[in-house]
């Protein structure tokens, strides 16, 4: 089967499993993004058919929520907190360092495809600011040095 064919099979399975839940669209979009890392544009017609919605409605929901993405992310997505508590503990300087180190801005992916960088507005780790999240892992009191260590270690893992 082609890659796109496999993807569509996955998408269809998720739609079939979840479509009868009340308010099923967000659970379906989460399911697809968990499985594929993003929501491919060509899955929209299938979701729309499955839920009896227009494609515009599905697209509208995907584009409304910051978390959903329509392009493939890097191997790892770094969510860096920009909110007030982190700013009070040097978050802005950390943000500059992170962008310089990775050579990308927010919403971008490094050329080697290893890291995507996304802003996040609070991780609830405000007692250990500044904070970031990579996958499920949360990091507190992040410094330029500790960021570099985390990145080096996760490059070694990937």
């Amino acid at each position, binding site marked *: 089967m082609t890659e796109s064919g496999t993807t569509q099979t996955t998408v269809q399975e998720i739609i079939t499993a979840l479509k009868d839940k009340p*308010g099923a669209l967000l659970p379906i979009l989460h399911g697809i993004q968990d499985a594929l890392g993003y929501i491919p544009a060509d899955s929209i017609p299938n979701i729309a058919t499955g839920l009896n919605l227009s494609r515009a409605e599905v697209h509208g929901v995907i584009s409304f929520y910051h978390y959903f993405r329509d392009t493939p992310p890097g191997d790892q997505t770094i969510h860096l907190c920009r909110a*007030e508590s982190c700013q*009070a503990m040097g978050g802005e300087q950390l943000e500059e360092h992170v962008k310089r180190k990775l050579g990308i801005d927010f919403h971008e992916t490094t050329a080697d495809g290893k890291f995507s960088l996304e802003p996040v507005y609070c991780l609830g780790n405000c007692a250990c600011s500044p904070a970031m999240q990579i996958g499920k892992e949360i990091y507190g009191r992040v410094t330029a040095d500790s960021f570099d260590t985390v990145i080096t270690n996760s490059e070694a893992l990937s």
Partner: protein
Amino acid sequence: MSITIYVPCDSSALSMGAERVAKAITQEAAKRGLDIKLVRNGSRGMYWLEPLVEVVTANGRVAYGPVQASDVSGLFDAGFTEGGAHALSLGLTEELAYFKKQQRLTFARIGKTDPISLVDYVENGGYRGLKNALAMAHADIVKAVTDSGLRGRGGAAFPTGIKWNTVLNTASLQKYIICNADEGDSGTFSDRMVMEGDPFVLIEGMTIAGVAVDATQGYIYLRVEYPHAFDALNAAIATAYQEGYLGENIQGSGLTFNLEVRLGAGAYVCGEETSLMESLEGKRGLVRFKPPLPAISGLFGQPTVVNNVISLASVPVILDKGGAYYRDFGMGRSRGTLPVQLAGNIKHPGLVELGFGLTLRELLYDFGGGSASGRPIKAVQVGGPLGAYLPEAQFDTPLDYEAFTANWTVLGHGGIVVFDDTVNMAKMARYSMEFCKIESCGKCTPCRIGSTRGVEVMDDIINGRNLDKNIPLLRDLCDTLLNGSLCALGGMTPYPVLSALNHFPEDFGINA
């Protein structure tokens, strides 16, 4: 005899290395042939001490912290399994002043128990509230909540009992209980601590709400940024179903209550209750007009209770000990306790649950120990990104909804973010406008367009352009946002902006 050691699984503790510490303890104990029982508890909320490791001794639980994995073998050498002395030793956990001075009602179990152990929960006072509720008439349960004086802890401070009463008295075949767990305010983490550290208390609170108003379906709308809370809630919900605390015929009562966790997707505005319901229905999170109130026509058009995590998690203790017990804490019309969250540039960040009435100054200095940087505290933002900045002159304000309102400030969800004197308040005002621009749902013009214009005006002000014209323009714009927006996002963005301008004009290039 086996030694019991506690290492938190709270995500802030994990962010400081708790997982590595837990592994190191297990390995080191195995190496030394010691029989230990490792329990992953919630956090005690003293985050400058995390990872905080506790050991059970004959005298009580002894604390060590902050522990790193590299400290573990030294701790074993020092005999920490018997409470031995070590540089990281803090003494008995519950004798630590920060903890001992608190009045923990909602947070009674958090940090003490294994969050996903139903046995621990029941042994420590859990499900007594539900047991009482199941023997009461609907109206009496609602009355207990009304009598307690509990007001919505999400930030709006609306009396919980009145909301429940409206839902109870609205006839419908299907009603819903929604827990708003979209804790998006910077500087807040009390909801997260409850969900990770004592998920059963939220489940019990929601079940009582369901029983009270005759709702059979509950949803916890959880922000996607809280993966550990998601896992803890789902584990606890599965156990509650197995043990007859959820589902059909709860504890033999013949009553049904089903509960499901739904994830948000990174939209701050979905913390607004009508936007949240749109999102739960699978739509864009656009704010709805009110009326109709959600209590009359809410989720899928049905009567719906929407309450914050802390409000619902406070219900079990109220039903257990009675409305009067809870009401006896607090001051004025702010009854009960408020879990305050100290965050940002503060030496002792953490969770402080106390009856209303303590002043901001007591919290910042007696509990918080002043700034983390050691520099003077210049401003604190209370109540999240839509809360006002308070200068030192207002630090004697008591934590009380009405006292805050009188200052044109808000207590909100109880988050306090501290800034030292290196902060530029004009930049913070610009950030508030930028945040509103990023998070606006786009339904109403003042918020959608006003925030964009607000960023532009702030850029002009920060660059010193035409202040004579731009400061009045900023005030005018704030007036439009304040009075013309559909919900609190646009309607309250002027709080941080104008408070920054009014209290710190010099940062805006104005000679005070």
